[in-house]
């Protein structure tokens, strides 16, 4: 967001309703702590801010809901609880693809193309990974997969996963799902699984870092399936490529997952551009979401920025970004398939 804001300001600002604005990002680090997230949202309210991107974890996103609703704040969490986006809630807009949307797509693809019949889940003993595991298990069962293991969890500070994985791999699944796995744990889990002789597929519904996988697991990570950022070389427009270049210059290195994060600010600004009164009136913002549409500058072709989510939430409270599923190979991600979410 800071990259995009600096870029807009450098090129003269953003015009809304005939006035050109510089974009100022007010940041607050909630440290994944719900109490701090509430404090952060209250700070935004005190400063008269109506549009917030975040929080990034389930607990924090749920915790800030009363503050956001009481202070007319639209917020764009990267968190998955459905009740945040389903009526009667109306102020939260999911800023990415949820695991209960990407998981079924991945399992279905692997069932049809790789003959996967059995699946095992392992998750860190934290709220986000556990809820993602539960969502994944439900989705897998609905698709007709046999879930052979779903009770094994690990402490998030685990450093050696061999003892953790041993009972899971005894169930000999075709697919091992690392539910909600963090980029720090993924390489160690993959490495331990492969070293224990597991030859099946390994996947996750979270985005990963190719550099971290290369360092931590090397070639053992080849074939690892994960959700990517909202772009691929084929999808990326020149503007997305410029964003990547600017981001890299600003922060030193680029993470594919940042493709997703560029969208929230763009959606907010373009929606405000289409409905200028929404700068101070979030009801106007909400009213415009059903019909809002604008060209997507980050994708090639005639792709549009629109709000989706009718199927998952019963109302349009999710930004439309492509669901990109990647497979890791020799130090980089390759696109496995691309799907869309309503």
């Amino acid at each position: 967001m800071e990259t995009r804001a600096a870029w807009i300001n450098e090129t003269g600002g953003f015009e809304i309703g005939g006035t050109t604005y510089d974009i100022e990002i007010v940041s607050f680090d909630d440290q994944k702590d719900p109490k701090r997230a509430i404090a952060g949202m209250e700070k935004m309210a005190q400063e008269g801010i109506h549009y917030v991107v975040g929080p990034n974890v389930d607990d924090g996103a749920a915790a800030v809901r009363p503050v956001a609703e009481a202070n007319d704040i639209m917020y764009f969490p990267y968190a998955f609880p459905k009740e945040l986006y389903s009526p009667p809630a109306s102020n939260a807009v999911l800023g990415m693809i949820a695991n209960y949307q990407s998981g079924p797509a991945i399992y279905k693809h692997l069932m049809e193309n790789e003959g996967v019949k059995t699946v095992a889940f392992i998750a860190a003993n934290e709220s986000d990974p556990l809820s993602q595991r539960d969502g994944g298990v439900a989705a897998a069962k609905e698709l007709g997969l046999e879930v052979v293991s779903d009770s094994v969890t690990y402490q998030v500070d685990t450093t050696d996963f061999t003892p953790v994985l041993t009972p899971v791999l005894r169930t000999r699944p075709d697919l091992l799902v690392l539910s909600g796995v963090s980029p720090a744990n993924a390489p160690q889990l993959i490495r331990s699984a492969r070293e224990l002789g597991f030859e099946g597929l390994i996947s996750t519904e979270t985005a990963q870092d190719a550099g971290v996988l290369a360092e931590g697991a090397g070639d053992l990570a080849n074939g690892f399936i994960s959700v990517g950022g909202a772009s691929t070389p084929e999808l990326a427009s020149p503007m997305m490529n410029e964003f990547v270049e600017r981001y890299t210059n600003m922060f030193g290195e680029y993470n594919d997952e940042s493709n997703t994060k560029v969208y929230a600010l763009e959606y907010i600004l373009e929606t405000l551009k289409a409905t200028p009164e929404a700068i101070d009136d979030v009801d106007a913002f909400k009213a415009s979401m059903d019909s809002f549409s604008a060209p997507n500058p980050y994708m090639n072709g005639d792709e549009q920025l629109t709000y989706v989510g009718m199927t998952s939430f019963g109302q349009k409270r999710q930004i439309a970004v492509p669901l990109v599923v990647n497979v890791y190979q020799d130090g980089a991600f390759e696109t496995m398939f691309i799907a869309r979410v309503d």
Partner: protein
Amino acid sequence: MEQILANGVYLGSQYAMIALGLTLIFALMNVLNFAHGQMYVIGGFVTYTFYGQWGVPFVLALFMSCMTLAVIGALIEKYLFAPVIKGSSREESTMLLAAGIAFLLDALILLVFGEKQRGVPKIVDGVFNWDFRLIMPYDRILICVLAILSIVAFIALMQYTKTGRALRALAQDRTAAQLMGVNVDRYSMIGFALGAMLAGLVGGLLVTITGINLGMGGPTSIKAFMMVMIGGAGVISGAIWGGFILGFLEAFGLAYLSQYGDITYLLIFVSLMIFLAIRPQGLMGKPWG
């Protein structure tokens, strides 16, 4: 069962090494070094930088980890702990200082090495597989052997060298050691440096298996304190016992209790509380300290 026992030995050897440095510092100075985990993390990052980034041979990178931590440990003792111990008779002063150093090291690690998980190339390829009854990658076997050899070398140093005798004398009775001509300031610094060096050594060894990241420091310290409390604070053999007991508890718990969820550490903590209520000095510690 073979796999569980092997996991227990492997975990126990690395845990024992982590606990050794902590208990040494406690024995010598009565300091609960909350920064021990952060020292372990720095050791991992130094090996990562030399071996993983600059291509220096692993053994040399490991040596650099040891030396870096020994210097850091010596400086921390000389310029932070020694003045506080001399100027304050309250034990909580050193505890607060140790906690402050832990936060400081965390911040420095973040600044210097960043927040990302880092890993290094495997030092040995291949996996030992005994008919799928016992699977152990060769690098883990090597690290386990190196850890056990390091423990043996440390015990030998403490038992058979002049420095070791001085350190043991210091641990037994600081005043008596001083009266016998032991340079207390010098050996306190050496002891702290040695404890920090052990943290660096184990960090450097384990980065080849587990990788390293900023967040590992706190949990490592907690586990190290658990091992020390099980074995008896300030007792070298107790730290080794504590490390292996925790390693085996973890290996058995993860194997047999995983179907009930993540309750292994819950039960370990409950067991530790009951154990300490019955035997507060730990397995090898003496009730009088």
